[in-house]
């Protein structure tokens, strides 16, 4: 699960694409249309007036400052995109029973689930994490089964484990289960061919 700002990514791509298409279109118009050269000159001369101002020292340093600010904004955007994964620790939970109060710590719960999944022959690897989506915490169970294993069978088992965990903690968790194929599954298969 990740919390990358997808709308922002696409907005940046959209703005850049419009700028590229406009510039390319203007160049093509300059070469193809009779009035294209005038359009090119009027657009570029506008920028020229601004750049000539850069020759003056104060305007020049202003431009450098503007470029620095824009560069910082771009670096922040790039860092936010890379750092999109938002982990949220599983909360320790407790429930009352006849035997008393049971408290399950996050590490224990995820380790227990991971171990249970690891014992299954058809499961090559499993990872339990919890992330935050829309300020709500979501348990993520990522499973890589051996090739040719029915995803239904895998999900059924994970669902049972999550259900057991909910019974133990007295708290129903929002759960996202992902079933992955991958190099490891392909290498671990018996003697069958990948499709």
């Amino acid at each position: 699960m990740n919390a990358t700002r997808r709308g922002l990514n696409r907005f940046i791509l959209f703005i850049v694409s419009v700028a590229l298409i406009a510039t390319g279109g203007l160049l093509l118009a300059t070469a193809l249309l009779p009035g294209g050269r005038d359009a090119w000159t009027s657009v570029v001369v506008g920028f020229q007036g601004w750049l000539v101002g850069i020759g003056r020292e104060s305007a020049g340093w202003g431009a450098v400052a503007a470029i620095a600010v824009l560069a910082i904004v771009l670096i922040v955007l790039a860092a936010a995109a890379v750092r999109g994964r938002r982990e949220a620790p599983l909360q320790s939970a407790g429930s009352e029973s006849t035997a008393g109060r049971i408290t399950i710590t996050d590490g224990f719960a995820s380790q227990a689930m991971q171990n249970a999944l690891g014992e299954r022959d058809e499961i090559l690897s499993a990872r339990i994490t919890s992330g935050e989506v829309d300020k709500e915490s979501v348990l993520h169970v990522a499973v890589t089964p051996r090739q040719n294993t029915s995803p239904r069978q895998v999900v059924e088992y994970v669902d049972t484990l999550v259900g057991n965990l909910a019974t133990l903690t007295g708290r129903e968790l929002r759960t996202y289960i992902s079933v992955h194929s991958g190099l490891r599954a392909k290498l671990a298969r018996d003697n069958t061919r990948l499709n």
Partner: protein
Amino acid sequence: MTDTTLRTVVRRETHSPRTGAMLTVVILLLLALVYAGIEIVLALTGQSPLLIAPGPALQATVDAPDALAPAALYVIGAGLVIVGVIVLVLALKPGRLSRHEMTWGERAVVVDNGVVASALAQHLSTESGIARDDIVVGVAHRSVDITVRPPLGVPVDQAQLRRIVEQEIAGYELVPAVRTHLSVRRPEDKEAR
């Protein structure tokens, strides 16, 4: 699944965030900005430019239609438009990943298409008795293509194979639902080509 948070998770996990494309664009923009900044600073401090000073660079841009041959303008203009259209497509297309959502009560379940393909092939092999190596399955966003290559002399009931596959796919409850295309190819079909 009615939980809006989990719906968001499924949407995110089945569609590309376009992070790679965005980072590429941002890094190129950053490089251009850093270069422009260096040239401006060099011009302001009276030092010689790395490549070209800002003033002459803009003048060259103004004069480009006269200085460059029309063919060069076509090539540069068309190149920019093509790159722009590619970036526009990346910005606007949904960017579906090769995964499917599986309906599973209140849990959010996403399965790689590769997992579905290999499981289907194995199931078909087990149920029909055809060797696993003779079955090739490809799972796309809305369709499943199955090619069966039974050995010579082994009778194959295509309708029965289709029934086996469709029952198994129905059990997965994939979203969006997929259509099944099944073809049986005999070894002689391959040799005839």
